[in-house]
């Protein structure tokens, strides 16, 4: 099945710093989503981005489907950005929408 790898596994930032999180996937995809899992465990949708570039405030994401990777950019980080960021993909040949998650990047933003 499709493999999803995220890097780095852990990241510590000072408040105000910028960061880039990466997601590599091993096959063509129908769907790619970025999530933020907050300390209470809630998975919050950040982007639905199987291809192209999107921006939402301090966050932006780019997926280059032909090269099988996606990047999540966080600018001017805040302590509330702390948590685990997951990339999840739906394989192109899957008909049901099942998402395969990466292992996540755990981000800690220090004041």
């Amino acid at each position, binding site marked *: 099945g499709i493999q999803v790898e995220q890097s780095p596994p852990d990241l510590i930032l000072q408040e105000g710093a910028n960061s880039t999180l990466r997601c590599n996937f091993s096959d063509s995809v129908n*769907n790619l989503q970025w999530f933020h899992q907050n300390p209470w465990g*809630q*998975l919050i949708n950040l982007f639905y981005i199987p291809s192209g570039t999107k921006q939402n405030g301090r966050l932006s994401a780019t997926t280059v489907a032909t090269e099988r990777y996606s990047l999540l950019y966080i600018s001017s980080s805040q302590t509330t950005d702390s948590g685990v960021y*997951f990339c999840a993909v*739906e394989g192109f040949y899957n008909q*049901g*929408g*099942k*998402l395969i998650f990466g292992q*996540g990047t755990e981000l800690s933003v220090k004041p």
Partner: protein
Amino acid sequence: GAGVSQSPRYKVAKRGQDVALRCDPISGHVSLFWYQQALGQGPEFLTYFQNEAQLDKSGLPSDRFFAERPEGSVSTLKIQRTQQEDSAVYLCASSFMDRGADTQYFGPGTRLTVL
């Protein structure tokens, strides 16, 4: 509008007990998914419903796990004869489309602890 809700939020079971976990998807969403998240891991797919039809149950770890969505709305995940390895957070997600390639919205999860 209301998001995906799950109940209970926390469940403690003694080994061997049966448990039932409930998911209320977003109104009008056709697709419903269950995922299992072990501590420190990403969620893993369990099963998928399109309306009331269970189209994919390839992720259910054993025949002790059973899911249903009889009227195409609320879903229940049942675990029989719980084991310690069943301890995890169980997440439910729903999406509007019936063929994937759509945003999935997740509920807050049910944290199951089996003693």
